């Protein structure tokens, strides 16, 4: 800890980018530094191939964690309650002016009057379910203040129709891979237990397929894993990258780069399998004893089913990767013990968010199975997780429900249910499978064009079958939506074809929109009333770095050590902003359920202590010591024994990892004590039995995994001739979702993120190959318009060989929407490339998003 300037106070805190020390002088934050651990804190050593590997004594945080100060004191902080100037709740509401009209400051009293009157009016006129609400994924960090906690507690009591989040990072794994190998409680991706040690000891190669761990960090783990990739390099482990973008991990580690045409990864994977089958390069014992239905899939690969053998030559036509190179990769992979990093978290990856991205994720599992998935050195692992980890120590992640105790809408609430965070858990009478709820990706359609139908309620983690269930809006007996209580403003930058969102906000059917937000950006500018929330540096909370838990059990194995942080209130909330808990307290008081919401008057500090006492912390450290030190590092058990993910499965024995299992026990008749995974056969299924049962004739998600050409790609000839560039828009490298973009954050000055043009505006970056740029007379730094039938977005061109000709790359998650004319109808200079992306489902029954199947054209912007 530093104390080189007299009079500074030092506080601990944590954010999506990692744990930090916050220095404060005279009520102002002066610096934010990475958490420094002491020699006395617990650590570990892995010995592999004659070398010793151990983490450093400092948290490795992301660039945006270190830019927090510029964000906290950001340019678009909302400092007072705001009302749209031409919104008259008692007269003309002028909904069509949303997004255009200015705001005026009002008092909290006035704001609460308007809000509570509207809630009552909506309830009286329309009955339950007429109020829609949904939060952005990340408003703040901390187990008390997080959306599953404070927000759910409040909304569940108030009653609301929830817009369920789609599993936006998992998509193809959730809707696809889950049917081949289970892991429903992880939404179809595997655990990473002890795979760092396994890789260091046993692996010979890594294949990063649609995986950029240097930037995505798994999730929330900052730069903690950077050192692990250096260890792999030190040991001479070869690294191959398959990604249409020469990504930020490839720049340091790529021994070979393949850039398949977006959406054709599955064809390339099929050709790899073809080489393994025809050249006898796969683990036949494993296929025989640990998998089911291989023969049918083999017949598809060999072309016995459709007269098209999936040869490397066939895949070359689809992917544009030379057949001989696919063959060379397959041979090397077939001979070397290989870790497949299929996305940033083991699974994930932009390829799973394409049309039929289900098939890519399924194919990844099947390729890994052909190489003895779970045997030493052979697994699905992306370097971002799987350090030595004490899973016996209980400390909750944010998705365990916190102070709501909501059992239905918080994954993994069972972890904490008996530990007493809340004495009076709350659940929603409306937001449950038998009530009314809508999917986030259909919010505009539900409001503007009811009725709507879809399958699956949000993250379908309860079982593989949950995603088959059909729902509709409006639900029988429930009201249509009339009011929207939005929390945060990200979706124009993160959902798809988002002019839909703009049009929805301006439609007359939506009578009242309130947004609770820290920043005046994105959707917040479409609200009638705005409630100013503060950041987690302005209130008290408690958390563990990188621990979300829920559908990523034990996610804090992404940091090198488990670091539990007391998130101290560093400064007073700026302006009149307030913590979300305080805002909800004020509303609850007026609506008469303050006692219930606060469980009899508990303060944020009381709740933080409840979380502390409900965890295993008191077994190791007193509240007083914890408060003084500000953090705690969880030690490993003395007799720690690594249990690599799926080793037990490969060896056909009882599961020995600390992973959870399907909620309610194992699959019927096949308890996981017998070496079975959570599929119908208990084996990895090349022919999925759950999909066969659901619809054996679903050609868009067949029981036997296949390559299916994209519904928006090089095969859609007419569209492709009009819009010949394929846009991929992965999760951003330098911001967490929209959190650190715009708003005066230093991240905007990173030229890979935004570029300041001659007009003084910071434009979002799009990457284009020099050949494509030349054809269009575009030079580095030029302002270009990217467009298709859905929208036009103004961006700064980065002319680079890091994308092949025909492909353009621009990250998603732009925070600001700034149309140069009529909202929803004019070009956006903010940089929301998701205005361009399709909102079509991955496939007809897989109701996820596929932004990486997007055709556009680009031209120089001369205005």
């Amino acid at each position, binding site marked *: 800890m*530093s104390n*080189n300037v007299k009079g500074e106070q030092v506080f601990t805190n944590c954010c999506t980018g990692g744990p930090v020390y916050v220095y404060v002088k005279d009520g102002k934050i*002066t*610096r*934010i*530094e*990475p958490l420094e651990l002491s020699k006395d804190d617990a650590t570990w050593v892995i010995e592999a191939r004659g070398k010793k590997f151990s983490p450093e004594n*400092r948290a*490795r*945080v*992301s*660039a*945006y964690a*270190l*830019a927090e*100060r*510029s964000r906290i004191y950001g340019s678009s902080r909302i400092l007072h309650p705001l009302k749209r100037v031409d919104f008259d709740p008692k007269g003309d509401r002028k909904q069509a002016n949303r997004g255009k009209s200015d705001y005026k400051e009002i008092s909290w009293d006035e704001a609460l009057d308007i809000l509570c009157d509207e809630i009552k009016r909506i309830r009286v006129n329309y009955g339950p379910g007429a109020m829609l609400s949904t939060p952005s994924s990340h408003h703040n960090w901390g187990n008390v203040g997080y959306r599953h906690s404070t927000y759910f507690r409040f909304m569940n009591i108030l009653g609301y129709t929830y817009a369920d989040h789609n599993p936006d990072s998992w998509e193809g794994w959730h809707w696809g891979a889950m049917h081949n190998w289970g892991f429903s409680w992880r939404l179809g991706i595997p655990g990473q237990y002890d795979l760092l040690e396994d890789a260091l000891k046993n692996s010979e190669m890594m294949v990063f397929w649609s995986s950029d761990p*240097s*930037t995505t960090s798994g999730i929330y783990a*900052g*730069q*903690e894993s*950077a*050192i692990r990739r*250096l260890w792999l390099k030190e040991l001479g482990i070869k690294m191959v990258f398959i990604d249409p973008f*020469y990504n*930020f*991990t*490839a*720049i*340091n580690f790529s*021994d*070979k*780069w*393949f*850039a398949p045409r977006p959406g054709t990864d599955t064809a390339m994977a099929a050709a790899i399998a073809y080489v393994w089958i025809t050249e006898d390069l796969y683990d036949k014992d494993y296929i025989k004893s640990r998998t089911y239905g291989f023969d049918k899939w083999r017949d598809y690969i060999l072309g016995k089913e459709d007269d098209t053998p999936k040869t490397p030559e066939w895949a070359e036509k689809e992917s544009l990767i030379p*057949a*001989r*190179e696919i*063959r*060379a*990769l397959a*041979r*090397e992979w077939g001979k070397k013990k290989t870790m497949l990093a299929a996305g940033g978290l083991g699974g994930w990856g932009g390829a799973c968010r394409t049309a039929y991205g289900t098939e890519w994720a399924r194919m990844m599992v099947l390729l890994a199975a052909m190489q003895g998935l779970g045997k030493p050195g052979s697994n699905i692992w992306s370097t971002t997780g799987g350090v030595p980890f004490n899973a016996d120590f209980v400390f909750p992640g944010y998705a365990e429900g916190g102070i709501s105790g909501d059992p239905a809408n918080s994954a993994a609430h069972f972890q904490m249910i008996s530990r007493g965070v809340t004495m009076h858990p709350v659940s929603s009478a409306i937001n449950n499978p038998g009530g009314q709820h809508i999917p986030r990706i259909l919010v505009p359609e539900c409001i503007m064009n009811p009725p709507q139908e879809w399958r699956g309620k949000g993250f379908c983690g309860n079982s593989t079958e949950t995603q088959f269930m059909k729902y509709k809006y409006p639900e029988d007996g429930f009201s249509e939506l009339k009011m929207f209580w939005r929390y945060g403003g990200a979706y124009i930058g993160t959902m798809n074809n988002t002019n839909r969102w703009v049009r929805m906000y301006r439609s007359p059917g939506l009578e009242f929109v309130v947004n609770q937000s820290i920043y005046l950006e994105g959707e917040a500018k479409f609200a009638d009333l705005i409630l100013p929330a503060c950041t987690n540096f302005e209130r008290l909370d408690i958390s563990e770095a990188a621990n979300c838990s829920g559908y990523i059990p034990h996610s804090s194995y992404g940091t090198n050590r488990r670091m539990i942080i007391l998130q101290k209130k560093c400064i007073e909330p700026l302006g009149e902003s307030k913590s979300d808990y305080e805002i909800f307290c004020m509303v609850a008081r007026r609506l008469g359920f303050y006692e219930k919401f606060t469980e009899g008057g508990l303060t944020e500090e009381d709740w933080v202590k409840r979380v502390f006492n409900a965890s295993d912390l008191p077994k190791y450290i007193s509240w007083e010591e914890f408060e003084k030190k500000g953090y705690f590092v969880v030690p490993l058990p003395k007799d720690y024994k690594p249990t690599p993910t799926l080793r037990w499965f490969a060896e056909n024995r009882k599961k020995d990892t600390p992973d959870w299992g399907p909620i309610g026990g194992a699959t019927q008749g096949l308890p996981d004590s017998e070496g079975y995974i959570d599929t119908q056969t208990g084996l990895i299924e090349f022919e999925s039995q759950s999909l066969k049962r659901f619809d054996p004739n679903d050609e868009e998600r067949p029981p036997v995994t296949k390559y299916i050409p994209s519904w928006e790609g090089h095969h859609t000839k007419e569209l492709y001739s009009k819009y010949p560039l394929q846009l991929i828009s992965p999760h951003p490298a*330098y911001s967490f979702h929209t959190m650190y973009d715009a708003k*005066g954050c*230093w*991240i905007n*000055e*990173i*030229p*890979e993120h935004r570029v300041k043009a001659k007009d003084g505006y910071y434009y979002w970056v799009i990457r284009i*190959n020099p050949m494509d740029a030349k054809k269009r007379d575009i030079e580095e730094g030029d302002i270009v318009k990217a467009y298709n039938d859905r929208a036009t977005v103004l961006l700064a061109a980065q002319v*680079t*060989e*890091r*994308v*092949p*000709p025909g492909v353009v790359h621009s990250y998603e998650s732009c925070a600001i929407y700034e149309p140069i004319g009529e909202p929803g109808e004019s070009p956006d200079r903010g940089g929301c490339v998701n205005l361009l992306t399709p909102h079509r489902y991955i496939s007809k029954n897989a109701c996820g998003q596929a932004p990486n199947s997007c055709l556009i054209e680009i031209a120089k912007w001369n205005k």
Partner: protein
Amino acid sequence: MTRWGFVIDISKCNACYCCFTACKDEHWDNDYPPYTASQPKYEQFWMNLARNERGKYPYIKVAYMPVPCMQCADAPCIKATRDGAVYKRPDGIVVIDPQKAVGQEQLVKSCPYGAIFWNEEKKLPQKCTFCVHRLEAGEIPRCVQACPSGCIVFGDLDDPQSDVSKLIKSANAEVFHPEWKTSPNVYYIDLHKMTKYFVAGAVVYGDTDECAEGVTATLTADGRSVKTTTNNYGNFEFDGLDVGKYTVKLEYAGYAPKTIDIDLKTDNYLGDIVLAKA
């Protein structure tokens, strides 16, 4: 004596930009008298990153290079200053006195590395000081603290046992633009990734259309030769080259050897090179 220096390993920079934001956090709105006045919130980059992209799709290399003030022993800014406003401390750190240097805009242009920035509001030239205010409190510079990959190493260049001294020796670290003769105290490992060129190709067996593994590739210039062998993708590569005339010869038993003359002006990926059966 202590002489502070950086050794920066370009191969380890993953463009995370942690050094970049940490530097801003340290200095924005914070005065550290008598060494630095506060940095404006935007548009000063005391720790900057340079990007270098080499080659053409599908064979490319990308490197990022952290660029702080080089703390030159023979600093052009000291020569360009008036009234002793820029001075070198005994530990090698070059300091622009935030009071005496007011109005001395000529210092910005004096730095060939572009490491001095003009503060319009304060009429002050400003730059990195290796966080000298932190060093005096026994702490390390912010960029070094923030770097997650050990790319930026800090230490005493006059101590032969220090990490920086050992690295300079073992990894052939070099200064950037030695021809400017400013004697920087910042050294780089794998500087060729920013300053030199490569020749690479993909060799194919003409008869089988397979990637040609194990082919001997010999690069010759001015009578001197280096050899390498193609990998399983048929790729060979020679990096760290200057512009000039080169010859690449490819040989594999049973195939007709092939010789390619190259007039190297920039990185050159030769693409597929087919060897015919002898």
